[in-house]
């Protein structure tokens, strides 16, 4: 029950935001996030922006992998 979509915020008005995901646009609820601004990236689920996205999956993955690498070196 978790189909989520990362999308760019195009505009914000009141409690709602227009988001764009690869050219598909929709108005979603922005009521659960503070200080949303155009250009932010958000995770959208069932028409609700549920989180701001702080970095890319590549960045996060490489951070995690570096950490594992350090752990492994320490253990050896």
């Amino acid at each position: 029950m978790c189909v989520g979509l990362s999308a760019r915020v195009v505009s914000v008005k009141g409690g709602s935001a227009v988001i764009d995901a690869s050219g598909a646009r929709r108005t979603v609820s922005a009521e659960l996030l503070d200080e949303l601004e155009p250009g932010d990236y958000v995770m959208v689920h069932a028409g609700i922006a549920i989180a701001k996205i702080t970095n890319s999956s590549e960045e996060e993955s490489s951070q995690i992998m570096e950490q594992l690498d350090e752990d492994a070196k320490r253990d050896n």
Partner: protein
Amino acid sequence: MKTPKEIIESYSGRSMRIMEVCGTHTHEIFRCGIRKILPPQVELISGPGCPVCVTPPGYIDSAVELALKHNCMICTFGDLIRVPGSQLSLAGARSQGAKIKAVYTPLDAVEIAAANPQEEVVFLAVGFETTVPSACLAVKHAQMQNLRNFSILGSNKTMPNAYRALGKCADAFLYPGHVHTIIGSGICRELLADGISGVVAGFQADELLTALAVILHHAEAGDEPFFENCYRRIAKDTGNPAAVKLIEEFMTPCDAEWRGLGVIPGSGLKINKTYENFDARCKFNVPECSGTPHAGCRCGEILKGILKPQECPLFGKVCTPVNPVGACMVSHEGSCSAYYQYGR
């Protein structure tokens, strides 16, 4: 430095049963073929993650009753339309003239109610913590607009006690990233104290690979138990406080029946007394009923990882994605449907 895929492929540690408890995880794992690159001693079990799968037939019966007997317009996520009830699915009810509409968000159901004052609109609120805020917002919007023709039929479920109930079925959980985007990762640390391991994982192929690599890294190092959040870019440790507050305002914890698993105490949410005007069960006096699943259906054991889908006598014969018997076959993400469609 090794890539996640290399860590997984070169894993030589003890045998690991990893349970994914989110249907979207199951779907993506099958779609990108992650099982095909796992070493033989690593097994992925599809737990009860799909809320469609765990929705008991009695719930569908109630929705069908609202549609056919009370002439309500049923708005629902598309996933539920083909789920079998005791007699009829919503698709079956639709062919008998019921008004059944797939919506993208419950907020659209509120708009439909506002635009059609002559209709009684009922939204089918299923889903875990990820989806609960959307149902709460729908009730909030309906209340702000003073709509009297909108209500929800609730069957929302919560994960923490399900993790505890299933803790012994697996060596580690892939925690669903979006559930923890809402509730945070505090619960995972509590489970760690109870000896339950897991990592919070995102939904893209690379995120799933990274999460599995982290699990296998810990398993190889002999760490026991362990927890990591591999989805920090979205699932913050504190979750989404505004969403949690919203849920607390509109919903109260309750015991819930999981199709195939039975009743798990404190694993459901129901609408608060204050808002019972928006509760379709109160409004139309439709009491909860359990319904009757197909006698041969082994969904329960499949959800717990005790049986593989192929071991169910109905699998692929009586029960197929086109004519699903058990709910695990209904949703694209149900374990049976996924096994049927993707093989293995």
